[in-house]
């Protein structure tokens, strides 16, 4: 079965902060942005074993910088959208074996997660270039 693990910085994330500032500048009511790398795995491990393996993989996880948590592989969390690279055309580069999406969690005033309309607007106006990416809600 497919499982997903969100790897998120626990130190300040400058990219997320910059995204928040840019989204506010574009008129969206975004107070805070949290960015994660969502890794997908097809394997037979139980959840805790998978989590332990991710935390032991220095290519994607640094215990001094990251936290990792299991998330639903089927859909983004509340207030979150996933950005996925569109599969390149034949002859164009592929990252073999890598299944990763970028998760953006957007919060408005008082820490309330943005609704789907807000997420869609954030994707269309900044977070997703439809020429090379698609947004999943």
């Amino acid at each position, binding site marked *: 079965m497919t499982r997903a693990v969100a790897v998120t910085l626990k130190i300040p994330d400058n990219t997320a902060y910059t995204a928040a500032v840019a989204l506010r500048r574009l008129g969206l009511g975004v107070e805070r942005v949290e960015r994660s790398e969502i890794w997908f795995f097809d394997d037979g491990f139980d959840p805790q074993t998978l989590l332990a393996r991710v935390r032991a993989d220095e290519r994607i996880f640094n215990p001094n910088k990251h936290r990792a948590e299991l998330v639903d592989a089927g859909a983004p969390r509340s207030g979150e959208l996933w950005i996925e690279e569109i599969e390149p*055309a034949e002859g164009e*580069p592929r990252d073999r074996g890598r299944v990763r999406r970028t998760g953006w969690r957007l919060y408005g005033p008082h820490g309330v997660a943005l609704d789907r309309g807000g997420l869609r607007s954030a994707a269309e106006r900044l977070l997703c270039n439809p020429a090379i990416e698609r947004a999943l809600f």
Partner: protein
Amino acid sequence: MSARIGVPVFPGTNSEDETLRLLRDCGGDAALVHWSRAHDLAGYDAYVLSGGFAYEDRIRAGAIAAHDRMMDTIVEAALGGKLVLGICNGAQILLEAGLVPGTGPVGRPTAAFTRNGPAPHFVCRHVFMKLAIAPERSPITAALSEEKLVPAWAAHAEGRLAASPEHLQEIVDGGHLAFVYASADGSLDRRAIPNGSALGCAGLINRAGNVLAIMPHPERDGWDFNHLDHRRSDDVLAPSGGAALFASFVEAVNEA
């Protein structure tokens, strides 16, 4: 009085100095405009967005800068007909801003200069850009000869043009493919493409012909001493090679 060319400097821009020098050596009245003085940009008659990593290329190359307040001025100027040239990161910013190829609404990109192929690595390689439009299609290229070869350096990790097949066809049909990579003899050879770019694209232009985005750096092969075949001459700082495009741009700005 000659027209003034503004070279905006975003946090992370790093090629502004050689861009400025070559513009001046080609006769342009050019000046740097830092992000902290964004309000000064409106006073310029044309713009050159130079290379670098504006805002660290956060989210995507050029994505944050495309919505910077300096770009508000440049977008308005471009829509009003002022000439705009973007080089490397400057080209990525123009694509993210939707100014080139300009086949969609402003602010909504329809194409991208994205991760190189077939290997997704940074390339630093001498290249030739061949003019793929009639010179008179754009004031920026008007002083170049038909199928002019412009030497330059490709120095990027994300320079591959990518778009849907429909949009690529739109780019071709609309005459937006301004420059293609070519061999030194001008032949179109797949091996001349350093990054797997669709259509062999090295540069895109908008419909009106006043906004040009090129990935390679002509300003890094713009003086005699830069050339790979350089022979010591009396004036190693004489503009040449890639300076042809800058000279054409400056001529167009001064005539506008």
